[in-house]
């Protein structure tokens, strides 16, 4: 780059700064404010719309990695099909509902795009080989949040023990006494349990 070009660039930046820093003489404060608000709504709305679009089952299973593996298993479980007609879709369990945690999760999940690009789990064999690690990540996240996503729908307090099977009553009694969290026991509730799980995974 020639020294002259550098001077030119600096000059351009300086001019832009001056323009942005100068109070407007042409537009009223009200118009600027309105324009700002309008622009804000468009940008923010657009951002949220985009984020919500990635927060649907359709989006999740648009990748064959999800569609061919975990989705097929989930379709056989009670979270997909049941007598009451309530369905918990992928994000209901795997993405936090509140904004802050959702954003954090979304940023973390962006790593999956890289995985998609380089084909980390693009065959059933690769998926199986990595499945335990992936499951452990999710169990850890759920445990860390006291199974927050489960608790969006379920809670020990709202359970009717009389309507539960004998062994479920016992187990929930224990869960209450020992202040356990849903994922402690309910691993594999919506997907097959991975091969190679250890007793520690069940602790």
């Amino acid at each position, binding site marked *: 780059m020639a020294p002259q070009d550098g001077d030119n660039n600096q000059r351009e930046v300086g001019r832009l700064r001056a323009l942005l820093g100068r109070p407007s003489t042409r537009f009223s404060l009200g118009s600027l404010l309105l324009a700002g608000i309008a622009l804000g709504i468009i940008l923010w709305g657009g951002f949220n719309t985009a984020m919500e679009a990635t927060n649907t089952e359709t989006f999740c299973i648009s990748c064959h990695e999800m569609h061919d593996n975990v989705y097929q298993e989930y379709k056989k479980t009670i979270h997909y099909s049941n007598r009451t007609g309530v369905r918990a879709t992928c994000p209901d369990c795997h993405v936090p509902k509140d904004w802050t945690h959702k954003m954090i999760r979304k940023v973390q999940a962006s790593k999956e795009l890289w995985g998609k690009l380089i084909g980390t789990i693009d065959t059933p064999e690769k998926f199986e080989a990595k499945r335990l690690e992936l499951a452990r990540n999710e169990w850890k996240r759920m445990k860390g949040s006291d199974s927050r996503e489960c608790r969006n729908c379920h809670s020990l307090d709202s359970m009717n023990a009389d309507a539960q099977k*004998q062994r479920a009553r016992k*187990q929930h009694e*224990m869960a209450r006494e020992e202040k356990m969290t849903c994922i402690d026991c309910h691993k594999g509730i919506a997907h097959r349990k991975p091969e190679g799980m250890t007793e520690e995974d069940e602790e």
Partner: protein
Amino acid sequence: MKNAIAMSAIGLVAALGSGAAFAAAPADWSKVPAVEVTLLYPGVSPVEWITKGTEHGGARVLRRGETCIGCHSEEADSMGTLIASGKKIEPNPIPGKAPFIKAKVQAAHDGEHLYLRFSWTQPAASGAAKMDAKNAVKLAYMLEDGDKVELAGQGGCWGSCHAGVRTMPGGADDKTKYVKDGSLDAGVFYDLNQWRSGENAVFDGYIADKRVMEGGQALVKAVGAQKDGVWTVEFTRRLSGGKGDVTLAPGKAYNFGFAIHDDSSVGRYHHVSLGYKLGIDAEGDIVAKKL
């Protein structure tokens, strides 16, 4: 008149005398309360399986001391159905195998003998090849004193059921049931009494480091018969015997479980009860009251 009184007195003495000398089972079993117990077809569910959290969701509560009946008494039949059909823990399902048997258990004692009576309706035969050609039916019960055998208090006979024993997948034909740290001297054993239909024979043994089908001195007799499709087997057992016999004392309760080898089966292909408590004039799931 005098003679009549004398004769009555003699009769009374004779009756009392014979009562003491020849203890008899209850004259009318219908007056002895019956407890219905479901025996389920257990598939391959040895100690190693029930204590493994990745296999058995109840392993955690089991570690906390929960009993098998605490979770499963209401569903023993449906568990048997799942297992017998091969949907769960049965790699070698036998078509037509009865998934469960509901048996009635009655118990009484006279201070010297324990009387146990089991009755159940004969399930339909599977039609499979006979594993035990001599005996269509066998019934065995086990007793344990003081929770010395690991899992005896929680799971009845299950404490003796292990992977690797005969008839288990990959099991050795010469390896029988055993209990962890089994020892007659230390009292770590199950007392075992068995009745066999075809041989019309009884066995009084125990399970410690291995299963032994002889040596016990408590079992007096066992008589069984099938009538109108209903089996009834009655055991007479002394409250105390010798080595390998659990000594029963009034006021105490003992760990108790039983199994039926139906359909000429052997080994693990039996129907098993979960673990119960047999009280001798004491609180229990099944209570033997003094006659």
